[in-house]
């Protein structure tokens, strides 16, 4: 039987090569993994269903973290939004909640993300541009005014100053009479990928890790509905990494947080169930699906076998996905709708738990309402028209997908070994390993594009027709002026003696090793501004300068 099959394969292979046009040799995925023209059972020799896949909702979760997946509940459509002032964004949130949305996702502006107040000269021209400006507890009160925090969950995309915004959110809840245990939400708070890719770091890696661990410990002790960190590959990929690097570096970061939290005295099952992940969905369809499946399987094994987690919730890798902003093109902007749709489908076939689809015009500016609506509709068409939600992990068992999933897993393992050999994630940040790997991959991608080895429609092929003029959204200077006025009023109104003494207490605590959440809460409640708190911490922790390489 086996022999007869083998012969049939060879006959096919001979016919494959004997056509008039020689078939394309050396096809690879976008990340450079070699691809065969055809996969057969021979490619999965020794492969075991029980070991590699199992059933949905069961170890190693290759087929999905829940037993019923999208039959039970489709993925959560979570579109990231925010701009201008706290008051404008509050209006937008009330509208979204009125439409039945249960979760908010806050985008902060660059000065807030980098820990500067709105009147800092370094933030000039950026206030309210890529998100909402938050300077003090007063802005946070305005942002959530009239919204019951025990009725919603809030996701906050912020990293270096995450502990401060977290403290502000808790303080708003307290004023509303909502207890710590009732507050639900997620902080991105993944500082490691900032050094690796997005570069919104402020302090050196070690004190930054301490702040992250302090929030993990605080949430584990007091806030059972809070995800203190969302371990993110998205930014690593957008910075130019391959799919394998995205997978490997993200899980390596995850392991670093697990180890740091255990070192701080937590038991793995006390915090691991609330770790969540965030990945990119790029344009190479099957490679992305394999990446998501490999991520779940790798994490389950790592948590169970390496860290001895016993709670199955600690083994489950739950993740949010965003389609690849970097795959969008300025040329023929409407084509971006098509790209985003394919990427969204890959995320869903890979079993994502929630999804953001980009708007076609984000390559030019913040999205207009029309473009944002098309992006939302793209997910609704996927969920309600294509039928993809009806069967769990529909590509499971495909010779090709299973082989590619195994290959992604092996590639990630090779990177884990390299990272260990260099002494771990922090050392690899300091010696520039991650940054160099990503810069090399980004350059290789551009080289292939220049050599026409890779085609991007509208960019290096089919370039006729620029497409229509696309309107863009703009933010006027009034936003910045108004925000600065309100900030100055807060500084004039509050008890400045109390602010100064609480900032001193924070510095004292920062020099020691106690959890920084209590002194941070004291500071925000006295209306110390984000910029003032960051300045106090910089005095103790210093600031980080990365090695410059390109």
């Amino acid at each position: 039987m086996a022999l007869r099959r083998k012969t049939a394969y060879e006959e096919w292979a001979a016919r494959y090569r004997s056509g008039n046009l020689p078939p394309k040799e050396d096809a690879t995925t976008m990340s450079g993994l070699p691809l065969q023209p055809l996969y057969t059972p021979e490619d999965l020799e020794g492969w075991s269903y029980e070991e590699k896949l199992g059933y949905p909702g069961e170890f190693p979760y290759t087929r999905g973290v829940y037993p019923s997946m999208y039959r039970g509940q489709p993925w959560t459509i979570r579109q990231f939004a925010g701009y201008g002032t706290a008051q404008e964004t509050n209006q937008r949130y009330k509208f979204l909640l009125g439409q039945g949305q249960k979760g908010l996702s806050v985008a902060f502006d660059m000065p807030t993300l980098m820990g500067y107040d709105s009147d800092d000269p370094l933030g000039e021209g950026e206030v309210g541009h890529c998100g909402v400006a938050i300077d003090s507890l007063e802005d946070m009160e305005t942002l959530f005014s009239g919204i019951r925090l025990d009725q919603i969950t809030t996701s906050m995309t912020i990293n270096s100053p995450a502990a401060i915004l977290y403290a502000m959110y808790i303080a708003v809840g307290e004023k509303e009479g909502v207890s710590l245990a009732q507050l639900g939400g997620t902080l991105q708070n993944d500082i490691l990928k900032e050094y690796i890719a997005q570069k919104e770091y402020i302090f050196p890696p070690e004190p930054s890790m301490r702040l992250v661990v302090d929030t993990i410990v605080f949430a584990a002790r007091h806030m059972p509905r809070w995800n203190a960190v969302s371990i993110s590959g998205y930014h690593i990929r957008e910075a130019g990494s391959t799919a394998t690097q995205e997978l490997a570096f993200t899980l390596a970061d995850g392991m670093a947080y697990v180890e740091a939290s255990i070192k701080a005295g937590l038991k793995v099952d006390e915090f691991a169930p609330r770790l969540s992940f965030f990945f990119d969905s790029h344009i190479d369809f099957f490679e992305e699906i394999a990446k998501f499946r490999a991520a779940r399987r790798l994490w389950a094994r790592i948590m169970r076998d390496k860290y001895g987690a016993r709670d199955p919730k600690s083994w489950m890798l739950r993740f949010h996905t965003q389609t690849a902003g970097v795959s969008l093109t300025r040329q023929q902007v409407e084509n971006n709708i098509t790209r985003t749709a394919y990427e969204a489908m890959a995320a869903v076939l890979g079993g994502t738990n929630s999804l953001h689809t980009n708007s076609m015009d984000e390559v030019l500016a913040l999205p207009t309402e029309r473009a944002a609506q098309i992006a939302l509709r793209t997910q609704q068409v996927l969920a309600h028209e294509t039928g993809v939600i009806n069967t769990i992990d529909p590509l499971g068992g495909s010779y090709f997908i299973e082989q590619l999933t195994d290959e992604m897993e092996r590639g990630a393992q090779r990177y884990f070994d390299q990272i260990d050999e260099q002494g771990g994630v922090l050392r690899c940040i300091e010696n520039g390993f991650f940054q160099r790997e990503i810069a090399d991959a980004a350059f290789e991608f551009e080289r292939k594009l220049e050599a026409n080895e890779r085609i991007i429609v509208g960019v290096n092929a089919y370039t006729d027709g620029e497409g229509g003029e696309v309107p863009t959204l703009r933010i006027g200077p009034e936003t910045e002026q108004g925000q600065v006025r309100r900030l100055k009023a807060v500084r004039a109104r509050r008890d400045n003696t109390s602010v100064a003494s609480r900032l001193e207490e924070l510095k004292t605590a920062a020099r020691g090793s106690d959890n920084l959440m209590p002194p941070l809460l004291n500071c925000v409640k006295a209306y110390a501004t984000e910029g003032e708190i960051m300045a106090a911490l910089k005095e103790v922790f210093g600031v980080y300068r990365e090695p410059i390489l390109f």
Partner: protein
Amino acid sequence: MTARVLTAKVGLDGHDRGVKVVSRALRDAGVEVIYAGLRQTPEMVVEAAIQEDVDAIGVSLHSGAHMTLIPRILELLKERNATDIVVFGGGIIPQDDATELKKMGVVEIFGPGTSLKSIIDFVNKGFKAA
């Protein structure tokens, strides 16, 4: 004569993929490239450009602050009598803003999807707009 170019990220965002790829492509094409790094203020950029005696400054922004920061670079170059230093840029810069910046004196704005070859040609042909 070999061209000397200072590249820099101005503003607060950390999206350095584009500026690094362009810096490397220019270097590989024989241009002397000094990459100043992230979060450079207009003052830092102009100071470095004069110190390093470069022919051109290439700035990259993705934060939306281009209409504040790029005009300031032009202003500072004027103040320092260094308007012989050419300014070009790239990043997320809407077409209307790019047109406006060119009127102010920026030689070229390279948006997403620009080929490396066109940037190398631009530098090698004496920073002339296409």
